[in-house]
């Protein structure tokens, strides 16, 4: 099967990759680019573990073909911290112990960041609705909500 050439920008870096047309963006990130921060949970768009930003839109990378990323910009968990400085959401997830096994965490962080870019001061209900597409089997969600609220407050300068 002929591989197809994909030229995409991942976390600001231009990347070229040859991919099989059946490979998802998730497959390309993990298997071709060795960026394994983005996790595979269900592979059907139900769990949100593979959440990334594609041209500034929050998507499940398991529901995007790798070739569809050609000419587009992808943001993953690997681009969230600035060098050694964690993003406020990352710090607050640690402070609030908003994770246990960690498989859902990259997706939840990407989804939470997208929420705060659209709504810097979300209510608990708004956070819960926004994160409905991200499943966590460990925490019971409460600590995640607290972490997002705390990070939002810090990012607003409170």
């Amino acid at each position, binding site marked *: 099967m*002929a591989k197809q050439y994909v030229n995409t920008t991942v976390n600001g870096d231009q990347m070229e990759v040859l991919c099989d047309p059946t490979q998802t963006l998730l497959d390309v990130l993990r298997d071709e680019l060795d960026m394994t921060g983005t996790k595979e949970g269900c592979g059907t768009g139900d769990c949100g573990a593979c959440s990334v930003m594609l041209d500034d839109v929050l*998507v499940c990378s398991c529901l995007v073909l790798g070739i569809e990323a050609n000419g587009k910009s992808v943001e993953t968990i690997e681009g969230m911290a600035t060098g050694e400085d964690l993003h406020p959401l990352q710090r607050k997830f640690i402070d609030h112990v908003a994770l246990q096994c960690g498989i859902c965490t990259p997706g939840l962080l990407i989804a939470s960041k997208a929420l705060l870019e659209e709504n810097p001061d979300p209510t608990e209900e708004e956070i819960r609705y926004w994160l409905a597409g991200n499943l966590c089997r460990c925490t019971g969600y409460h600590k995640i909500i607290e972490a997002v609220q705390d990070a939002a407050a810090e990012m607003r300068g409170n």
Partner: protein
Amino acid sequence: MSYEAPETLDAAVGLLAGESGQVKVLAGGTDVLVQIHADMIEPDVIVDIKKIAEMREVTNEDGAWRFGAAVTGKELMDHPGFNAAWPGIMDGVRLLGSVQVRGRATVGGNVCNASPAADSVPPMITAKAVATVVGPNGTREVPVEDIGIAPGKTSLEAGEFVVSFQLPKRPARSGDAYLRFTPRTEMDIAVVGCAVNLALDDAGICTDAIVSLGAVAARALIVDAAAKALIGTTVDDAAMEVLAAAASAAATPIDDKRGTVEFRTEVAGVLAQRAAAIALERAKS
């Protein structure tokens, strides 16, 4: 499997008509990619229609909206004018999957995936949306209710695909609404769905109505008896009783893990009343 992303309708029609193997049209991909990876379909060619400009547009011509079949749920949600004009369609769009899914999923895909439980379909039907379909034999106009005909099956001919949806100009004092019942508020599939679109005259009498039920038959239904229950009334309690009975009577659901026949039949009537009440409020405001 090969991947093609034509930039014009003509090129897409040519690709679809010229392919002898199995071809699948790709819009948001939130159903198609799942089907590919579950080996439910094994397309030889994927034709991605998202690079065709007219399939990505939302336009308003003198109050009559048209939107492309590749417009995402998020793009519609981010369109204030469309939200104000068709709140009932947006009730359905907001219930499609998660934020992540709505970033990709399209109403065109929801219609063409032909699930009887598709949330955007009943309100598109009650809006009297008409799909513009192209294919090897040219262009034709198809009412949305005639596209999905059974679970996973559409009336589209080989090589045909939906380009866009045309909505009629809304009369003054009209409103629409969609409600569904699900055990979970988000990320769930409708056990029952109901859309109502109605118009009032200056005295508050309902002059036109259309009611559609989802998830209670092999395809979304139009319930004429339910609409007749509202027309000529002020949508008062008596009319609501007749409406609920008509909606329940029209429901021919299956028993499955999501709901029993008895439950779905009763909920069809309850949702019809509640959706009508919301549509009425929107018509008056």
